[in-house]
């Protein structure tokens, strides 16, 4: 890689209904019904896509603190046919759900988006979430991530359970399918067993992009084994740089090439023409929420140049390979990012160009080989 291309970065945005701040909807005067409408979500994705952002992350939890959250895979599927270009990575949790269903839903998102699907697996930590299902109690992080590792393995193996050329339509023998190219998983884990194969053929990308958080120790080995994109949060850039080094080492220890794993740093943003104004806005948001929103990661409150400067520094100092923007207020902050921050980054030569094709290709990844190819069923 030349130093020039090394300086280029990936840009993702998290599209929560009204933004990261729990009082965002009230502050912006958004009708709660609007937040549940397809038009709202498609509009956000369209804004991000128009400026060439790589990836929209769509969060989900069964027990949201802020406003209601639609099922994230459903939102991504509703967006995909009407918003071109941008990758769509919904969160699908793996603690109280069935890996078989998750696998086919993400595979199908890849079908309806023509190869632009990603997936962020997440764990459900709280007793409040466990109570919605009533199947098992809340578990500690190490247990949750051991289970998540099994779920991810099953999801990915199910994607591979059909070889690409399994459908043959051979009139001479009356066979639609070459069943030797379909494979049972016979997965037996600590937490569950899954027979396979999937009911859904292998998705267009082979493996949709897997995005994982690696902020806690228990998640790191899972990310090192499975993630194409690793999300981190950090209070400042030096801390982020340490986390990135740690992740790259873990990826190498897991026998994978660290250069094929992209580390994205979370950056909370609220943009205004002046820093004072942005800070006053946050004070007002916190007042409406009745509590101060602690920063979950690096936070930029200020004009577009502040954000462009921070991103430039992050990439130059190898604190991250790119950022995930967490707008505190949507759609306002995203509009400023698209209208002003992206042109600044482009002007500084920080953005990649020529971003057609699959989501994997945007992240420099080839279509993966099939785990089962060549095996007999």
């Amino acid at each position, binding site marked *: 890689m030349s130093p020039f291309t090394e300086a280029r970065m990936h840009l993702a945005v998290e599209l929560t209904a009204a933004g990261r701040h729990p009082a965002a909807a009230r502050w912006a005067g958004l009708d709660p019904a609007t937040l549940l409408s397809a038009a709202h979500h498609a509009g956000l994705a369209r804004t991000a896509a128009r400026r060439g952002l790589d990836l929209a992350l769509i969060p989900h939890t069964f027990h949201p603190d802020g406003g209601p959250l639609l099922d994230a895979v459903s939102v991504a599927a509703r967006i995909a046919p009407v918003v071109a270009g941008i990758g769509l990575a919904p969160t699908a949790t793996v603690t109280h759900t*069935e890996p078989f269903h998750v696998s086919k839903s993400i595979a199908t998102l890849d079908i309806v988006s023509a190869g632009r699907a990603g997936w962020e697996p997440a764990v459900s930590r709280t007793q409040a979430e466990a*109570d919605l299902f009533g199947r098992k109690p809340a578990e500690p992080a190490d247990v949750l991530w051991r289970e998540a590792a099994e779920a991810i393995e099953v999801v990915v193996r199910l994607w591979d359970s059909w070889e690409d050329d399994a459908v043959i339509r051979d009139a001479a023998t009356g066979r639609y399918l070459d069943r030797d190219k379909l494979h049972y998983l016979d997965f037996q884990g600590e937490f569950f067993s899954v027979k396979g*194969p999937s009911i859904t053929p292998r998705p267009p990308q082979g493996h949709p992009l897997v995005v994982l958080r690696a902020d806690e120790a228990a998640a790191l080995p899972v990310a090192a084994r499975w993630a194409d994109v690793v999300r981190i949060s950090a209070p400042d850039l030096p801390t982020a740089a340490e986390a990135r080094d740690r992740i790259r080492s873990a990826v190498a220890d897991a026998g994978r090439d660290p250069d094929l794993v992209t580390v994205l740093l979370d950056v909370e943003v609220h943009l205004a023409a002046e820093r004072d104004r942005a800070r006053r806005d946050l004070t007002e948001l916190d007042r409406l929420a009745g509590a101060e929103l602690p920063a979950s990661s690096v936070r930029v409150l200020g004009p577009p140049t502040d954000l462009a400067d921070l991103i430039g520094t992050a990439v130059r100092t190898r604190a991250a390979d790119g950022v995930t923007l967490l707008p505190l207020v949507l759609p306002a902050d995203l509009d400023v990012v698209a209208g002003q921050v992206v042109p600044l980054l482009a002007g500084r030569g920080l953005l990649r160009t020529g971003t057609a094709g699959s989501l994997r290709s945007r992240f420099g990844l080839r279509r993966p080989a099939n785990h089962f190819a060549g095996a007999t069923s």
Partner: protein
Amino acid sequence: MKKQIHLGAHFPGVNNTTVWSDPRAGSQTDFASFVHFTQNAERGLMDFVFLAEGLRLREHRGRIHDLDVVGRPDTFTVLNALAAVTTRIGLAGTINTTYNEPYELAVQFASLDHLSAGRAAWNMVTTSDAFTGENFRRGGFLPREQRYERAAEVVAVTRALWDARGAEVEHHGPQFDVRGGFGLSPLPQGHPVLIQAGDSAQGRDFAAATADAIFTLHGTLEAGQAFYADVKARLPQHGRAPGDLKVLPGVTFVLADTDEEAQDEAARIRRQQVSPQTAIAFLEQVWGRELSEYDPDGPLPDVDPDVDNVSITRGRVRHARDPRAVAQEWRDHAEAHGGLSIREVVIEKTGRQSFIGSPRTVAAQMDEFVQRDACDGFILVPHLTPGGLDRFVAEVVPELQDLGSYRTEYSGPTLRDHLGLRHPHAPLTRKESA
């Protein structure tokens, strides 16, 4: 006003009704196929598009069945994507109550209803075999007799969540313990339209108590009238009016310029649907034994069915009847028609289409079933993907409109509007409760 016909459009399924060997047969999984099919159904002002689902690939003689179309995308994901490329048509998905948890289902159906602005429908199925359960955490341990108990509890919990409107829901039952809030309430339709598939007495009772539509088998006019009267008569005891439950049999159809040409075309399609290999597979299903040495163009086997081998085909509803009686019926049929071959018998016994004729003939026959109270409409099951409904929409729909039995425009935005269903909490009118 004349009784109006309701139409659902069943995306071609993964069985031998769907013909893959035809040059016009497109991809069964490309999104473009779903878009073509659904936009065409919407052009035909149909009430809803319908997706089936099975959660384990079918096996025959211990191996994955390879003769029929195989492979389906995920139901919720396809329906949400279809919501993006249509504006009015209802979006009905088959979702299993045994291998899903009610809270997650409540979120998924609420999301579909919000994202489609009130077009969601749930075709509830209750499969619980251990074979399918092998793909799931919870396994297949649900005893058969508890299928409807679980289904009823799933409906109770999901409806309580949809009705929550900010309140905490707490449910404790034999199948589920669920406690928590539900931020996605209320839904545009109140509740998604609920379809029940299954004709058993248990299924009919469940539908009468719970469902907005019943997806049933199609038979003769008289059989339809008897079924229709039976399920409608079950409604008052649940405080419901006859219009609250629509009876919609699944039907196949063949169209041609003349009735005679349609009969020829129907015979040709049946031969496509029953290839020589498929004929033997059907035979093995009834006989319960391996019969691959038999010539599909030769006579039926002399050996009797192995009545103990009930698992030769798995992942598909098997003949509920005694296989010996079916075998005898097939032999009698072959003999009565001058010695039919295996393939000819299978074609005759498994594949006859419901409506065959010119567009005018088919429209008149369908109208008769509805006007004479054998049903409230149909779920159309075409044999080709993605164009299997094209001719029906272009030629039968105008005939139905000319008969005054079919809408010329959608009357409202939601699927409940299309089906003429009340909002779930609307009371009966005085006339209905009389």
